[in-house]
């Protein structure tokens, strides 16, 4: 069955092959193999970009296919990052604490260990107590479950409330944005239990692999990200290609018609919203160990809007468009803002791209919306059509 699915959707095969080739190439050129053409930090950037591509694919499904312009998917991404970050930070601190307690006259009790860990983690926010949300932080398995469950449940409850009362269109966008804002404001508080605006840090240190070099760890995460992107792409391509795809595209184009055909539109929206939220969270859980730090600023509403920008520039309603958009814009953005782009001297004024990149992005986004509503992916379609 999978064979026939791939046979019917050759673009999926092309994409997976390109992704595999890319992964292989990056691995060969990385510091881990000794060739070291690509620095470890650049490998991390590429790995993070793959995660961004994955959330962009999810965004494309919920927006490009189902017509729900969610301005909240980066919140799910961030929650996934927080969930894995809690375990990383706990386990890492536990290692350090156990080392420092080892030299004492009496062996430490579990309570003393947990108090010491709490002190280490929450000292910055003037506390040493473990908040209840850290109840599972000591277990990798449970915390991995949290990566999926917490954002999934939030999406389920929020989506159920919103879709049930038939909030649609821009209202829904504003509502999802409000949800994101509320979440980030909540996390900014010191007593949120997640270290306020300090966020979680040191996530690049993987407990149990203290002796492994970052060059190797970065490649492992790069592989994991590539695998997640590949599987996610396959999964969503499968969802949108069949009858499910028909129904959700139908919801996008004419919700009432689908409803009068007897489909319970709200369930479908909820399904798509939740499943994409979960995939976003998984992308986040892979992203933040590569970024090393997560703080509430990452969840701010603006991030989710950028996500929409990537998908729009890449081209909605085609999964590879989302991947292209996310990779292209986020890499370009780090090139411009990282000072990589050369300044443009105009004689009377010199354009520094660190200052002017956002202006350029903003206006080019307007241009894309006005003149290329199908984005970069639309160009591909044109090429394909010419050949045919």
């Amino acid at each position, binding site marked *: 069955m999978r064979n026939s699915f791939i046979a019917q959707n050759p673009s999926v095969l092309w994409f997976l092959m390109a992704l595999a080739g890319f992964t292989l190439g990056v691995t060969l050129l990385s510091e881990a193999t000794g060739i070291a053409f690509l620095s470890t930090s650049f490998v991390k950037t590429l790995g993070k970009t793959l995660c961004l591509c994955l959330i962009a694919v999810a965004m494309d499904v919920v927006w490009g296919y189902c017509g729900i312009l969610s301005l909240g998917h980066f919140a799910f991404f961030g929650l996934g990052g927080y969930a894995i970050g809690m375990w990383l930070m706990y386990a890492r601190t536990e290692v350090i604490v156990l080392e420092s307690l080892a030299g004492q006259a009496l062996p430490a009790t579990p309570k003393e260990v947990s108090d010491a860990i709490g002190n280490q983690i929450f000292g910055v926010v003037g506390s040493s107590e473990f908040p209840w949300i850290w109840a599972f932080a000591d277990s990798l398995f449970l915390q991995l479950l949290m990566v999926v469950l917490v954002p999934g449940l939030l999406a389920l409850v929020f989506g159920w409330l919103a879709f049930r009362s038939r909030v649609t269109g821009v209202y829904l966008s504003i509502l999802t944005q409000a949800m994101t804002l509320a979440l980030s404001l909540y996390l900014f508080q010191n007593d949120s239990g997640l270290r306020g605006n300090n966020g979680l840090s040191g996530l690049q240190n993987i407990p149990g692999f203290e002796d492994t070099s970052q060059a190797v760890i970065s490649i492992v995460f790069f592989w994991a990200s590539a695998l997640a992107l590949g599987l996610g792409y396959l999964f969503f391509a499968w969802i949108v290609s069949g*009858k499910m795809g*028909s129904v959700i595209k139908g919801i996008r184009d*004419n919700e009432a*018609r689908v*409803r*009068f055909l*007897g489909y*319970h539109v709200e369930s479908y929206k909820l399904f798509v919203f939740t499943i994409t939220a979960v995939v976003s969270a998984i992308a986040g859980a892979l992203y933040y160990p590569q970024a090393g730090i997560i703080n509430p600023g990452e969840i701010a509403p603006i991030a989710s809007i950028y996500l929409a920008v990537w998908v729009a520039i890449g081209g909605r309603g085609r999964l590879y468009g989302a991947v292209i958009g996310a990779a292209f814009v986020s890499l370009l953005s780090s090139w411009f803002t990282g000072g990589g782009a050369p300044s443009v001297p105009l004689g009377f004024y010199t354009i520094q791209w660190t200052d002017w990149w956002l202006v350029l992005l903003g206006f080019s986004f307007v241009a894309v919306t006005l003149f290329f509503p199908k984005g970069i992916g639309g160009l591909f379609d044109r090429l394909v059509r010419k050949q045919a």
Partner: protein
Amino acid sequence: MSTLLEVSGVSVTFDGFRAINNLSIQFAEAELRAIIGPNGAGKTTFMDIVTGKTKPDEGTVVWGERNISLLGMSESQIAMEGIGRKFQKPTVFEDQTVRQNLAMALKNPRGPFSVLMHKKTKTNAARIEAIAEQIGLADQLRRTAGELSHGQKQWLEIGMLLAQEPRLLLVDEPAAGMTVEEREKTTDILREAAKTRAVVVVEHDMEFVRRLDCKVTVLHEGSVLAEGSLNHVTSNQTVIDVYLGRGHA
């Protein structure tokens, strides 16, 4: 003939405007019925109430042998009960092929998970082809719906309703914007469909109604003004007054 749908004593008010006023109307199984009336007579609102889009202020809407109340059910539940609705403007999914449009409408489990796990079967394909034949789109199955002509879109929508296998079909102005030949074909499709189910056509166009050759209900200011054959109702003085007095659009 047994009663399929019974609407009684229904009223609905929008911002003080009484769109439906103590309306009572019944449909039998396998019946073709035309509903006519001037603008603002409440034809579309009546359909909205039956299909669950609008909740009436008072009255009852009872369905089927088991006398289920349709009030309080959602649009999709009502559709699953066997009421199909065609909109005034043709609403097909223009981005998708004719086959996909029909496949989506085909009577099958409607839950997200059964849809996700749905597999194409030969029976389904045969059903799609039979319906395509019925609506005259058999050779258009692979085309994108957006490329169809206006009339073909109308037929496709009717075809989608037939694919739902409803027991009651509500059709809103199917002939609007059609050529003469297209109208004839539409009439044929509807009359054919009415042999096995109830079909209710809301129409402005008297010629089209005449061609349907069925029982006619005249709505005026939200309630039934007259009922009977077309000749019977058009000879009714109040009906003439209503149409001529208000200027027939």
